[in-house]
């Protein structure tokens, strides 16, 4: 046990089995990002997947909208310790976008409008584990929350769910993204409290 602070009793107890360690329930939806919110209009928007050999497949906004989408209800967990349960999204599964591209890559670097990057294992984006999400709570995703579209990888801390995502670059080697280069964990599993490097 840690060092006891005299007189501190704490409040936010309610052992909720759906809350990973160290997380508390947020009723609102906090916004955290490293810079100003990019405003990307749907007309200007484009999303691409690029393989390690440079093969590129891209979608315009109408093209993305034409793909079969899924309704997703998931819990989300931010490294700054808030979690939200049963959040509702709509998006296109990453499986449908990486689809039949030929790749030997094990890793992905997600790139965003605005320059943000984050690295993930490719396996964590496939088999129904991740989406390019464009609706939140039944409404178009607002710019603050990554609109028009963001990556949604609910089983990892939310910084992995790159807002304003524009490209997934497949790679055979794992390089750190923006926060990872600044000391955050390479993988970011909330259930193992992988906040910072070495956790």
């Amino acid at each position, binding site marked *: 046990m840690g060092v006891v*602070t005299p007189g501190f009793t704490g409040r936010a107890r309610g052992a909720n089995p759906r809350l990973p360690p160290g997380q508390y329930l947020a009723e609102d*939806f*906090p*916004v955290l*990002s490293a810079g100003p919110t990019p405003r990307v209009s749907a007309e200007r928007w484009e999303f691409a997947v690029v393989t390690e050999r440079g093969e590129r497949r891209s979608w315009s906004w109408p093209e993305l909208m034409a793909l079969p989408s899924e309704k997703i209800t998931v819990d989300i967990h931010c490294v700054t310790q808030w979690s939200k349960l049963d959040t509702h999204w709509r998006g296109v599964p990453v499986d449908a976008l990486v689809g039949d591209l030929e790749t030997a890559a094990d890793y992905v670097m997600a790139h965003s409008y605005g320059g943000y990057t984050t690295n993930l294992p490719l396996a964590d984006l496939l088999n129904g584990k991740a989406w390019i999400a464009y609706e939140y709570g039944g409404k178009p995703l607002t710019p603050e929350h990554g609109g028009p579209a963001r990556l949604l990888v609910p089983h990892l801390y939310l910084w992995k769910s790159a807002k304003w995502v524009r490209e997934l670059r497949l790679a055979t080697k794992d390089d750190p993204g923006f926060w990872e280069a600044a*000391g955050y964990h390479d993988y970011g599993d909330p259930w193992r409290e992988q906040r910072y490097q070495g956790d």
Partner: protein
Amino acid sequence: MAGTAVSGRLAWRVARLAEIRQETPTARTLVFDIPGWPGHLAGQHVDVRLTAADGYTAQRSYSLAAPANGDRIELTVQRVADGEVSEHLTGPYAIGDPVEIRGPIGGWFVWRPADTAPVLLVAGGAGIVPLMAMIRARREAGSKALFRLVYSLRTPEELYYAAELRRPYAGLDITYVYTRELPEGQSGIPRRIDVPTLNTAAWPADFGATTYICGPTGFVETAADIMLALGHSPQSIRTERFGPSRD
């Protein structure tokens, strides 16, 4: 957008409260002794962990308010009504009491004394904390980088670091924006930060300045949007968002 490489595990260290400075009726600066502190950059933050007698813990982030002074660090905590951690730290928490702290964290929202570009700091409420660390780091290093500060606060009595900020010193210009109540004798009406304020206070967009904006989410969004509208590049604007937002 390159960060600062940090390697190795971030250890929890035991810190003890050494000194309290009341900044306002609802905010206090806590000075800690923290043996083995590795040092930090202005703008970085720490995680603070409180443990109750039964083992329950609560953890929150707080910005470092001043450059490191050996094994001493300073945080400034604003009491949030009904806040689990801030109410303890601004209330019963007393000299000699331990907490656990780990850090420093964050490699993007930082100012380094070697940076010579002009700087605009935009603070909303408690958002002054990491920006004050930058002002203090500049002074300590004898930096000649030109600094401007725009500090938005509700009323004059919510001014943090009042004695220090009221003492003028070369190279730092301050603009106060009062949103509820003006200081006695000042004419005008309270207002929120707006385009004319930042248009006057900000460096011209082509000066190669860096802008640091910190405060509650809505404040940061507004200020950053204004800076973009004034022609500043997204890369020149760094933000730190403190608080929750309502959808």
